[in-house]
């Protein structure tokens, strides 16, 4: 097991987005999140990179990533009024792709802000 330390890591749990966290991690989980608050610590320590879930599910059954991507594309393309929603717990890079997706589909686009 190799231990890694990441300095000045950024926590995305709450809107403060503190960027001074020192993360200590082995290959599967974060063991310590120095300077993080109680919420941030829980956020960092709660995730592991163990394969806890299947790559994808279609109708509740395990599927490959390629199958799921094709199924997603087919459903979204077939819809007259598809909705793209959420985008809070993800990166700006993914958010830009989501806006592009809604634009491509001629669909609806919305985030948590509207709640």
């Amino acid at each position, binding site marked *: 097991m190799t231990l890694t330390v990441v300095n*000045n890591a*950024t*926590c*995305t749990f*709450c*809107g*403060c*987005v503190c960027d001074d966290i020192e993360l200590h*991690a082995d*290959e*599967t*989980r*974060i063991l310590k999140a120095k300077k993080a608050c109680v*919420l*941030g610590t829980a956020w960092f320590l709660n*995730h*592991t990179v163990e394969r806890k879930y299947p*790559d994808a*599910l*279609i109708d509740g059954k395990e*599927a490959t*990533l390629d199958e*799921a*991507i*094709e*199924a*997603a*594309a087919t*459903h*979204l393309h077939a819809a*007259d*009024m*598809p*909705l*793209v*929603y*959420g*985008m*809070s717990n993800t*990166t*700006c*890079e*993914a*958010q*830009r*792709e*989501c806006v*592009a*997706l*809604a*634009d491509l*589909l*001629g*669909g*609806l*686009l*919305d*985030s948590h802000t*509207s*709640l």
Partner: protein
Amino acid sequence: MYWGGNPAECHPRHFTKYALMPKSKFLPRGRKDRTAVLVDIRPTKSAKAADIFLQVRPGKDFELITILRALIKDQKVSEEAVAETGITLEQCTDLIERMKKAKFGCVFFGMGLSMTRGKHMNSAALLTLAAEMNAFTKFVAMPMRGHGNVTGADVIMRWQTGYPFGITFNRGYPRYNPGEFSTVDVLVRGDADAAFIIGADPGATMPQPAIDHLARIPTIVLDPHVTHTSNLAKVHITTAPAGIAAPGTAYRMDEIPLPLKPALKSPYPTDEEVVRRIKQAIVKKPFWMPEGAQMTAAQV
């Protein structure tokens, strides 16, 4: 001033890292050089951190803000109106005096203001109060955003579409109408006929009729976990968690972008990669707007 928010429990480092404690060139004693006020309907843990706690009666935020706006302009306010807010006139005038004496005032407002009776009217009133305070001293106000990178979504939607949320592209260009194009309304009315959910779990948080509709239509979920929404979805794809195992950028609530530095390598792809691949698969299919339709649409 914090209004309708509980940073001690929801944004735990807001006091220490950003707003109350830091020492600086002009506030060398840090916390001692600042006055902290909390306005809320009950004494939360944040009240302990405040110099002054004002317990407003539930649903009376708009009234209290309006009274403060009147008082800063030396207008008369009836005792009954003040009494209804749960705050005394003495408390109001003391607050106004302190606000006017401040060198730089800042109001952070939370969902206790923006999501209760009056909703966006409350936020508008508070922003107006802050704007009007500039006749006396420097004063600003900003919302306390939650939900990690919700600010990034806001910022990006604005630069790519002109609008922050509640958008439709169904005429081939962005239009905006909260209430019409916002998600809960769209789902409760049963309008959407497919849903793509990312970085959110509406199956756990939305009103039941909205959840019921998500279960009726093909719903696609991207998430690091199998969520409540995944369980009612047609398709779930597991992705790497942002900032933990996926690199990129996130915006702080004051719209400052920060780089993400993942400490782990995920066996799952990133959201960015999966959305891009879905997009590429859709591009291979016929475009929804018929050839030549763009000219017609533009003329209309």
